[in-house]
């Protein structure tokens, strides 16, 4: 991989798209570095596909510029851009066989001897045997690989993927995620991947931009986004979060002490994305798998220095590797807790009084002015 080369950088500056009075994408600045696997994640209608199509040249931006490396491509039609797309549901040419589909781009650029290149590319995506079949004779996974091969064979500076795995069943999707990741590492081309599947984005991408209502909510490495969400939308859309409304109390060193439902919670100041003033309100978040559950009778055994919340088990569902509890607590009517099934406490059944406790370092703070449920319905969709 060439690290000093920046010809595959995608730089969007102030790019936006409006349809009449509807703004699909608000002015957006984004840089995707050469050779990275970048994911645009969001629910349908959040503007992620429009952004991708503006990079491809299939949609004309209402404002702003698109640059590839040092070249301004904003005004170029798609066929003049060194960019290729893997379309949603593939858009393979039904009248051409696999070989001709893959050779299409090469032939349009006037390359005569395509045989070797096409065969090598079909080998890369493990379709050497299917070269003379028509697309409709292939399975969904095979069609998907043809679509990838058809785009990659042109050695684009950037490969754009528009929900490429959306039409596949779950098992095949997992397999193709790894496959795409392998191909990307092998060819070293910049991938920009649009998806609504948070797990897919987190597994494959180096950097994820979470989009909501035409704006980028947060951008970062998957672990960073998951562990330290900056908005309620990201907290709810990526995985599950417990959000507790709390009042800012005192500050002790690098920690903020908060009041919630009569108890005290500690939040590292560095993990709070909102301004904190004493007496102000804040949303305190913690991921369900970070919380430990102890029966109220054993509350004394909980080590000092952990955040504690009391409650009663409202529901428990056993799902194999873990048990998912819903806890009814004075600080929040429904807290989710996922407990690994290592040593199961038989007393932890619905109705039992429990203490929830977790390491304060796993707590994050969000601005309480936001919608606490943002990103919840989208995740279900």
């Amino acid at each position, binding site marked *: 991989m060439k690290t000093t080369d920046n010809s595959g950088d995608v730089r969007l500056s102030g790019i936006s798209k409006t349809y009449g009075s509807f703004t699909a994408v608000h002015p957006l600045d984004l840089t995707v570095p050469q050779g990275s696997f970048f994911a645009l994640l969001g629910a349908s209608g959040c503007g992620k596909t429009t952004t991708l199509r503006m990079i491809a040249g299939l949609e004309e931006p209402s404002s702003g510029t698109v640059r590839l490396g040092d070249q301004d491509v904003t005004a170029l039609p798609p066929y003049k851009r060194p960019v290729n797309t893997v*379309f949603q549901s593939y858009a393979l040419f039904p009248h051409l066989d696999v070989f001709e589909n893959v050779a299409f781009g090469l032939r349009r650029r006037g390359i005569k001897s395509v045989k070797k290149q096409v065969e090598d590319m079909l080998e890369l995506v493990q379709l050497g045997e299917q070269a003379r079949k028509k697309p409709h004779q292939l399975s969904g996974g095979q069609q998907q690989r043809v679509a990838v091969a058809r785009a990659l064979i042109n050695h684009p500076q950037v490969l754009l993927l528009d929900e490429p795995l959306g039409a596949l069943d779950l098992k095949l999707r997992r397999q193709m995620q790894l496959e795409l990741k392998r191909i990307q590492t092998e060819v070293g081309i910049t991938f920009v991947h649009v998806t609504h599947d948070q797990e897919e984005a987190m597994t494959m991408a180096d950097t994820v931009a979470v989009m909501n209502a035409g704006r980028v909510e947060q951008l970062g490495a998957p672990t960073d986004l998951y562990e330290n969400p900056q908005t309620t939308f990201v907290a709810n859309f990526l995985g599950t979060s417990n959000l507790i409304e709390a009042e800012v109390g005192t500050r002790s060193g690098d920690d903020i002490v908060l009041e919630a439902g009569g108890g005290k919670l500690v939040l590292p100041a560095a993990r709070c994305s909102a301004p904190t003033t004493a007496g102000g309100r804040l949303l305190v978040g913690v991921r369900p798998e970070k919380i430990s559950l102890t029966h109220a009778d054993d509350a004394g055994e909980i080590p000092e220095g952990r955040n504690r919340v009391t409650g009663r088990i409202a529901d428990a569902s056993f799902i194999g590797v873990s048990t998912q509890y819903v806890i009814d607590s004075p600080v929040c009517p429904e807290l989710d807790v996922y407990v690994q099934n290592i040593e199961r406490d038989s007393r932890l059944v619905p109705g039992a009084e429990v203490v929830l406790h977790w390491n304060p370092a796993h707590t994050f703070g969000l601005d309480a002015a936001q919608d606490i449920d943002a990103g919840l319905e989208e995740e279900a969709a």
Partner: protein
Amino acid sequence: MSTLTEAPPPPSPTVTDKKAPRRRGRFTPYWLLLPGMLWLIVFFALPMIYQASTSVQTGSLEEGYRVTWHFATYWHALADYWPQFLRSVAYAASATVLCLLLGYPLAYLIAFRAGRWRNLIMILVIAPFFTSFLIRTLAWKTILADGGPVVGALNTLHVLDVTSWLGWTAGDRVLATPLAVVCGLTYNFLPFMILPLYTSLERIDGRLHEAAGDLYAKPWTTFRKVTFPLSMPGVVSGTLLTFIPAAGDYVNAELLGSTDTRMIGNVIQTQFLRILDYPTAAALSFILMAAILLMVTVYIRRSGTEDLV
């Protein structure tokens, strides 16, 4: 139809009444076929057989006709009327090509560019069907009339000089020339070209155009390599729906042409209704049918559309 007849009988709902429903189920496909089959037998198969027998009869109107297996009628018909056969094929082919040239851009526009005007344009395409075929053809007689505005304009632009030189028109007349007949045929059969073209263009996934553009195809290349090949089923059915009836048509040649533009349809009509030579007329009909079947078979084979999705 074969799949219908081979459909397995539905499982019987009750055990006690086992035989009756199964038997009824087995014959259902035939009952469904019956009305259509009867219609075809009475109005297609029987007339065909009758006509076939007429074509090998000899005799006269006064003495009556008898089947004498006189196949020489076919030979005579072909020997006497081969120019009209060739002319029919040439006119029908010209009209088909013109229909394709006029219809394709329009069908393309309706399918991809018309937006909210799509339905209105479709209605305009179909609207001529609300008036009789005969009336519309007669209207062309007025449009192309000597000294009329169309002829005047063509004359001023010296178009008629060129078409006369090519033998399509005669002097400063358009009416009663091959051009008038071909124009009439083109006009009358244009919707039969546009509708199948539209149907097959409309079925093309718009993302295929985007994919072609994304893969370095310029708009014209996209059309040549993606849109046109995918519209081939429409091109084939459109040309067949235009060519077949145009080759057998006699109204346009009758109303817009002259004795020099007689098509085989006119000959058949004259033989049947004026000369009352039924065997020759029947033989001509069969020759026309065979010729069209042959041409269509070759055409479909060559265009290779059975391979298309």
